[in-house]
């Protein structure tokens, strides 16, 4: 499944880049992220309780950031697994200046397997949209609250 979109964040590219590569901030932004631990260079292990509405599953995930080019670009790779199955995603994030604001352009592939794939196909796209929506809303908040 492809996901892509553009979100506008009210901060400079550098700031957005820094926020989005800061594990503490990521933990706050990723919906349901309960824990984020460094396990290597730009590599983290995370615990997420993710889902939509009452349908939730606990996932353990590794998050890695690759191809970091501040403030233009990086690639985010997430692999999570839990009782309802697995989720694997990788996405390119590009940061484009938009008159002092930053456009975050993201495009990636998400693969879902196990129970989620076999019974959830009509909702998966919606769930992905919902999660990314929440993510960027959180990010916007972070950008505001940690405004320096």
């Amino acid at each position: 499944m492809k996901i892509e979109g553009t979100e506008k964040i009210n901060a400079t590219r550098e700031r957005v880049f820094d926020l989005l590569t800061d594990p503490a901030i990521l933990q706050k932004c990723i919906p349901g992220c309960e824990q984020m631990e460094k396990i290597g260079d730009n590599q983290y292990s995370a615990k997420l309780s993710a889902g939509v509405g009452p349908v939730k599953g606990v996932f353990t995930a590794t998050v890695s950031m690759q191809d970091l080019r501040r403030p233009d670009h990086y690639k985010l790779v997430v692999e999570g697994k839990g009782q309802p199955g697995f989720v694997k995603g990788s996405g390119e994030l590009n940061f484009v200046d938009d008159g002092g604001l930053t456009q975050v352009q993201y495009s990636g592939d998400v693969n879902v397997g196990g129970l989620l794939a076999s019974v959830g196909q009509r909702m998966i796209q919606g769930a992905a949209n919902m999660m990314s929506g929440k993510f960027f809303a959180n990010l916007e908040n972070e950008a505001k609250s940690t405004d320096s």
Partner: protein
Amino acid sequence: MAEKVVGKGIKRTEDPRLIQGLAHYVDDIKLPDTLHAVFVRSIYAHARIKKVDVAAAQKTPGVVAVYTGKDISQKIGPVPCGAAIPDMKQPDHRVMATDKVYWVGHPIAVVFAENKYVARDAADKIEVDYEELPVVLDEEKAADPKSPVIHEKIGSNIAYKLTAGEGDIEAALKAADKIVRQKIYHKRLAPIAMEGRGVLARYYPGEQELTLWTSTQIPHLARTQISLMLGFPENKLRLIAPEVGGGFGSKLNVYAEEAIMAYASMQLGRPVKWIEGRRENMQGTIHGRGQVGYIEIGCKKDGTITGFRYNVFADMGSYFQLLTPAIPTLTGLMLSGCYKIPAIQMNVTACFTNKMSTDAYRGAGRPEATYVIERAMDLVAAELGMDVVEVRRKNFPEPFGAENPFKVATGLFYDSGNYQGALDKALKMADYTNLRVEQKKARAAGRLIGVGVSTYVEICAMGPSPALPAGGWESATVRIEPTCKVTILTGASPHGQGQETSFSQIAADELGVTVNDCTVIHGDTAVVQYGIGTFGSRATAVGGTAVYLALQKLKAKATGMAAHMLGVDAKTVTFDDGKFTSGGKSVTIQEVALNAHLAKNLPADMEPGLSATTFFEPKNFTFPFGTHICVVEIDPETGEIQIQRYIAVDDCGKVINPLLVHGQIHGGIVQSLGQALFEEVVYDEQGQLISGSLMDYAVPKAAQVPWMELDRTETPSPVNPMGVKGVGEAGSIGATPAIVAAVVDALAHLGVRHLDMPIKPEHVWNILKKNKAGAA
């Protein structure tokens, strides 16, 4: 005088228990101390198993045992395949995955616990580490030498290549005025028996007796195979198919789970039960169809067919189940349809893919054949601007029967047929000429009406033993008990078809007793003599014939006994309506039955008792046929398809019970409808089964089914004494092409000649939209 019941649509004697929920399926059989099994199945389509961690599961209170593939896969023989194709490559199909998983649903581990809840909790705790491998999903691309390979030992994904057919195909196509070509898909379908699979196993170590209750269509064949898998004596293994809630071919198989439960019950010393869930059923029970092929049909300007070629890639899935590789060969046999075609060739490339195995699903290879030849006939008609009925008529053989069987270029001799008869009757019922007039008018008014015609023939009553992997005969024992109740033991174990009723009807008429006096026992290998099973529309033509022949033996003996009782020569005795009569004296069959058992007044050379067994071996298959006509209307704004009328005239030879025949036709048409318009097993590009539940996989429901106008013609088969042919699969063979043809026909004026199944409204809408854009 008692009324004859053969030919009467009496209600099924099995129904009261089914309707009231009083029947006993595997899960209704409860044994004390039973352990419940839950499987852990692969969530990847193709991966190496790095580690299976069962520690937490084992520690769960209530868990008695956990087996992984490594633990047991060498202790149980491979999952059997009964079909053999020359030079076929057969992977070693173990009961569970060991190093690699090959499809989503491949069993990796199994938990046995005090109840199913604990078993499931523990199964959830089993952690499997996978290393993903590239997946092979498309049966055509799988054949590409550059494709990743599923079975390293085999070295390619090609299971076999096979060429079949007779006649000089090159010359035949060269001789044609026109050649029409088309690529055609037969998507994978899930059989979706209402009752999934289920197994209960119990071992008595003292008696060394293993009893297996399993939801199967083939109790005896399954017993033989499972005894071989376990290395356990066949005569100590009792296999019972209790009430079986449908199979559609999916239970014409031997599955890993059956052997695993049997093995576990012996190891653990307790009964073990496994009941398949629906999601498991979608992932781990065989699928049907799964072919993509290219047709080439040559014709003369007048519509005469000169030759037909079908090059097909057949999707085997990752392993062979019982008949997996044989299914495409059945397609090859029926490519001639009901037409005179001088040359036919089928080239099969059968490929492994990272999916569940395909195997027999209602029709098993023949729906594919009927679909391609019927689509081909329509394409020829379109190419030549002929009516679809005329093209068919042009190529029909004259009516034929015992004296002049119809030889086709696939090597078969069809037993009897009158294709014109069924066609004419259906056309009349449909008022075909007028339908075409109305269609034209409607089209002028902007309405999209389509008429589809399919004239099909199928091969059934499987079948002569030399043509089948495991014997094509069937057995019956008929006993008359001292109180003149009649017990029929059949090897053709039914699972919804209604043999308990139809076989009783046969016996009732032959013996002059009532249907209620008869009982049909089946499915228990400890009670019933060896038999083959119910599949391939064979139960009545082969199993029913065995019953009929056993009854003749019984009658002969009873007549001898009656003659003795009457003190007359047996030749002078007539038997009618339950009475043996000679020269004004008579004895009833009841008196004879009692005498047979009291044995006080028997002829000197006669054994006591009244019981006869027959093993009937048919000399040929039978070839039922018919015409189906479908009328659809398409919503020009949305592409939604509505079936307006459905007409079917089927000829299954002599009919024992028209109600059962209608039931079979109804069900078959409904499954065809599903295939044509809704059903499709979908694996995504990672090999995840995303049509994994009945929320997404669309089995037709009553409200989606049109009214069906049914009639029949009766052309007796010369292959068996009752003249019956078989009807279990007819609907699912004849209807699919008619429905697809109707939709195509509704769009024909837009240049549409073929659409692949399932024909979804959105696809039709896209065509309509494009056309509108083009017209604007």
